[in-house]
């Protein structure tokens, strides 16, 4: 099979890139190693579309996405991605938290972001369900959240409709250079696919695939855990986070709450199939109830876990590779790939088409670790 672009990895990054390429009439093939499209972090995250708290190097991507893509994404994908731009509250209850939040706020404001420190009372004015434990918060009114499941599947649906070819259960094991240019993609089932350009967006697996053409991206798998509750009547629409980073999340349009968890033990999870820990949800519930006592009777219906590709410096690699012409890397998203995915999909298509990218990607080059 011969196409112009092969995308390795059918997560939201791969699907969004495929969508943008297909829309421009580029023939594209997406190879997904697992059975399901969007099987990794794409569908296992808290759904944040945040600018606040982001590393300045990836901030331009999310600002671009929030300004130009997220507001129209539901129409574009003919899928309700449940995007709500109702602000982000990052909560704190101790002087240490205040210090952390002030640092984050100062750095983001320096990048031109509309974010500020507010008092506990101001936070409670924005979200009346907050407890008195909250003494400080950072507030970014242009942040928001969306539904990672429908956004991922929506990109997939529209890319497919526009002619992008998808094959799942087709695990890529090797890339091969032909006459100095990466050209072939070889899979575990023995199939060989060829393309002019290959985008590697396979999460942590990307590390082993890139290795076959002599490239290493320093990242490691870290477990991500999430819980979701029953649906209740709408309470608030802000995205939430904490200075201690013990939980983050929001109430969805459906009425359920989605919270990302952090028990601190995630980096030590055993390799293999991602498995929820027996204590993370309980720990998160204590943290959530401390700030939101009125959620104490809400029922948790499901927890799930996934691997994220945690990069050495916590921002992704989105880059062409000088010494491997034809290869484009898109990995190491470190658990914050969702909010920037629409912009990443766009710039990846631009890289593949040899166009100037909508956002400057020089800080996300692959060779920054050298």
């Amino acid at each position, binding site marked *: 099979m011969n196409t112009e672009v092969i995308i390795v990895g059918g997560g939201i990054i791969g699907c969004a890139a495929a969508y943008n390429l297909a829309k421009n009439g580029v023939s594209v093939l997406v190879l997904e190693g697992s059975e399901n499209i969007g099987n990794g972090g794409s569908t296992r995250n808290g759904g944040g579309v945040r600018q606040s708290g982001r590393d300045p190097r990836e901030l331009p991507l999310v600002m671009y996405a929030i300004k130009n893509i997220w507001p129209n994404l539901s129409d574009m994908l003919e899928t309700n991605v449940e995007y709500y731009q109702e602000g982000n509250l990052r909560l704190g209850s101790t002087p240490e938290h205040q210090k952390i939040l002030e640092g984050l706020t100062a750095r983001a404001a320096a990048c031109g972001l509309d974010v500020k420190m507010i008092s506990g009372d101001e936070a409670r004015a924005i979200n009346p369900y907050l407890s008195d434990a909250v003494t400080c918060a950072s507030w970014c009114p242009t942040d928001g959240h969306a539904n990672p499941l429908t956004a991922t599947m929506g990109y997939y649906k529209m890319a497919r409709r526009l002619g992008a070819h998808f094959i799942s259960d087709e695990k890529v094991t090797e890339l091969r250079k032909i006459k100095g240019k990466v050209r072939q993609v070889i899979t575990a089932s023995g199939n060989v696919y060829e393309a002019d350009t290959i985008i590697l967006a396979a999460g942590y697996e990307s590390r082993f695939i890139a290795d076959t053409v002599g490239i290493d991206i320093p990242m490691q798998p870290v477990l991500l855990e999430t819980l979701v509750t029953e649906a209740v009547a709408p309470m608030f629409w802000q995205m939430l986070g904490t200075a201690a980073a013990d939980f983050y999340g929001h109430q969805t349009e459906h009425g359920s709450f989605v919270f990302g968890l952090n028990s601190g033990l995630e980096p030590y999870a*055993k390799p293999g*199939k991602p*498995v*929820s*820990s*027996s*204590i993370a949800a*309980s720990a998160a519930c204590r943290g959530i109830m401390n700030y939101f006592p009125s959620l104490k009777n809400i029922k948790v219906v499901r927890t799930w876990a996934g691997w994220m590709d945690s990069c050495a410096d916590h921002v992704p690699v989105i880059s062409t590779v000088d010494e491997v012409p034809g290869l484009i890397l898109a990995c190491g998203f470190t658990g914050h790939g969702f909010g920037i995915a629409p912009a990443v999909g766009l710039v990846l298509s631009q890289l593949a088409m040899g166009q100037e990218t909508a956002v400057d990607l020089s800080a996300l080059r692959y060779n920054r670790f050298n």
Partner: protein
Amino acid sequence: MKRYDLIIAGAGPAGLSAAIEAAKCGMKVVVYDENARPGGQLFKQIHKFFGSKEHKAKIRGFHIGEELLAEAADLGVEVVLNSVVIGLFPEKEVTVKIDNHVEHVKGDTILIATGASENMVTFPGWTLPGVIGAGAAQTMMNLHGILPGKKVLMLGSGNVGLVVSFQLMQAGCEVVALADAAPRVGGYGVHASKVARCGVPFYLSHTIVSADGCDHVTGVTIGEVDKNWNVIPGTEKHFDVDTICLAVGLSPMSKLCDMAGCEMEDNPAKAGFVPKVDEFGETSIPGIYAAGDVSGIEEASSAMIEGRIAGIAAAIRLGYISEADGKEKIAEQEAALNGLRQGMFAPGMRGKMITETEEGVSISQNLLKHGFVADDEIERFPGITHSKGIHPVIECTQNIPCNPCQDACPKHCIKIGKNITALPAVDEEQECIGCGMCVASCSGQAIFLVNEDCGDGTAEITLPYEFLPLPKKGDKGVALNRKGEQVCSAEVADVRSAKAFDHTSLLTMKVPKEYAMKARFFRKEEAV
């Protein structure tokens, strides 16, 4: 963290049986169950079970549950009710919700015995209040004493549909019809017959077209289906009902196995998504076992034996019993299990069309199509004889693993032999004393005592009777035939109840003698 030798999820027949065997070997065992009462579905089973003595045959399901529970308690098994196993994590860590907190416990071995959940079918109106699962009907009437409805249509002719139809009538509901899309009755013929003779019409090859009603069910329309399961226009029939009961099969409730990481398979022979287990019930994860319906839908009797085997296997694993002794015990259980897995309804026979019994007698086609054996078919079965005077008439026409009638007769009139699935035969050489033990012992209510000619132009028929109000001697009414049609007038000649009969009364009715082999049920009728 608290640690047990064996943690069992589910205090049903499999879980309790495993607990008993493990505890007998000296293991420290805890059983968690989310219900307020232990026993799983056994506590809703008020009918007598099939099998032989070692399978607890002719004992009612809920009594079996009580016996298992008492035995487990005597052996020091900790049974924790109202406790929900919410997760099974690596290192055999279990999280359990108990009261208002969550406990973390570990087991050196784990048994998952979470049972099954009911399948459902869709049709217009299937979400209306009044459309319920057959299990829901059982829960309401047999656990809580609440009538599920006044007029009920049952969908499903498997054993659950048949047994629950009978239970609905025992509780005081009217079962207006029993429908099934399949062309043949799926459950035991004897269960079908006891429902049919009460006057419930069977509609095979029929499915529900719609449930009618605005806020709740007020009626149901069924229709005949063609080979492609499409309703044939013009065959629709309407019934005024307030309840539609769905009994369309069970699926293993195996989520916990899947979460634990056990290797799973979708196995139609086991009725769904089940963990792969070896002959001891051990899953792909060493030390994690599964037994009962969770590893493949079968009868409660089989679940109990599977549980015992898993319990013994866990004891071998942890060195509480030597491998040699344990294997010997397991071999005994396997023999008992093989006994149950025989006959026309054995797991391996699913979907097979059977035309003859093991004895070479043609199967009653009327039984499969209409739920009762036709008059011209009944004579060919070995349980039917025409001796002078009182004698048993055994209308047991399919090979099922059950033999209490053979043991019940003090005069050895009834012969099944070593092969537990053989059709019972009446030995005319032996004299029947009319004690009725066979009638009360038959879990299928398929045995009658008949005196075909009392000398005065009448015949006397003694039948099992499990309804209230219990008719009294001298009550006049009508006799119903196997189809449930009124065939003649009848008078109650005797009603016997005894502890040994276990709530099955023996009702003797007098009918004109030409109805001796036709009349099979009595209904008291108010004089018109």
